[in-house]
């Protein structure tokens, strides 16, 4: 018997990272802006996305959405009401989406091809921990936080907020009755991800949507 040290230096999520890199290349060559929306359950990702899809469609943009949940196609049905093509991904217990699921569902999606799209939104499973480890090939990772969740969410879940490219605060219409400390929330987000773009929105009143849509258009022009 001889003891030997074998250097591996292998990324544990290498398979996911490699597939995500392939997807990213495909998204860029098809000129599609892909966004990965991540938050806790109940933040209002679906309501925010539904309004985003409606507004983009109203502006004549070609949009589609993939939506991840453990079970049910409730969110896909809600989002489809916007008029955009929507496909549900059921993970059956898995707490995050991965690149393989995105790839498989894009392949199987009849009537939707990347070449016919300008924007693709991927609504991740509601979870602030695991989705941060899985690259989906997106251009922009959006971390959402609602005014009901507590201003210290970014400090409690630093990995997700630190890996985000944009932050969206939802439900601003009820900020006041919730005693939401806006300045503190902005400070905490900036503490974890200095300089990140932050959008203060309400899916109910449409507040903040103009700024958000302008950001999307700008990001798409820069693909």
């Amino acid at each position, binding site marked *: *018997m*001889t*003891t*030997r*040290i*074998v*250097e*591996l*230096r*292998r*990324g*544990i*999520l*290498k*398979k996911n990272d490699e597939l995500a890199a392939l997807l990213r290349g495909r998204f860029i060559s098809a000129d599609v802006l892909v966004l990965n929306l991540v938050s806790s359950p109940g933040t209002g990702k679906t309501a925010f996305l539904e309004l985003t899809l409606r507004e983009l469609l109203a502006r004549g943009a070609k949009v589609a959405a993939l939506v991840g949940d453990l079970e049910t196609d409730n969110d896909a049905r809600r989002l489809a009401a916007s008029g955009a093509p929507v496909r549900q991904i059921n993970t059956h217990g*898995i*707490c*995050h989406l991965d690149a393989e699921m995105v790839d498989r569902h894009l392949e199987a999606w009849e009537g939707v091809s990347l070449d016919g799209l300008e924007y693709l939104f991927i609504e991740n499973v509601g979870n602030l*921990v*695991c989705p*941060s*480890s899985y690259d989906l090939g997106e251009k922009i990772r959006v971390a959402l936080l609602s005014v009901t969740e507590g201003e210290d969410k970014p*400090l409690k879940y*630093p*990995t*997700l907020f*630190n*890996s985000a490219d944009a932050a969206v605060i939802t439900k601003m219409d009820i900020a006041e009755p919730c005693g939401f400390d806006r300045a503190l929330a902005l400070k905490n987000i*900036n*503490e*974890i*991800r*200095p*300089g990140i773009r932050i959008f203060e929105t309400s899916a109910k009143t449409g507040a903040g949507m103009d700024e958000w849509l302008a950001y999307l258009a700008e990001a798409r022009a820069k693909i």
Partner: protein
Amino acid sequence: MHELSIVASIVDTVTESVAAYPGAQVKEVRLRVGALASVVEDSLQFCWELTTEGTPLAGSKLVVNTLPVVMHCEACAQEVELAGVQSFRCPRCGEPCSDLRQGRELEIDSIEIDEVEQQA
């Protein structure tokens, strides 16, 4: 809570790698895990015995080397190590930092194996 799938992926990779050393027994698997990797060592250890059972990794030890976050501070023009993950500011000058150089690692660094001597 995706530690089980992470451990399963480690077992697959190591099993593939030791195939080059027939009969070898894995003694130790060493990981490099960044402070921002969202992976909890206790959960990895909890799944380890169960997941490695019946594989060349059975009975091996899992060693997790946690790496602190390292940022590049523009103001100081150098890399700085953060004490935690609650504030992404340079500990020297207090300026915010967004250029991450270390902290998201999730990798198998090396393995230690007992090799069977080849008969001449």
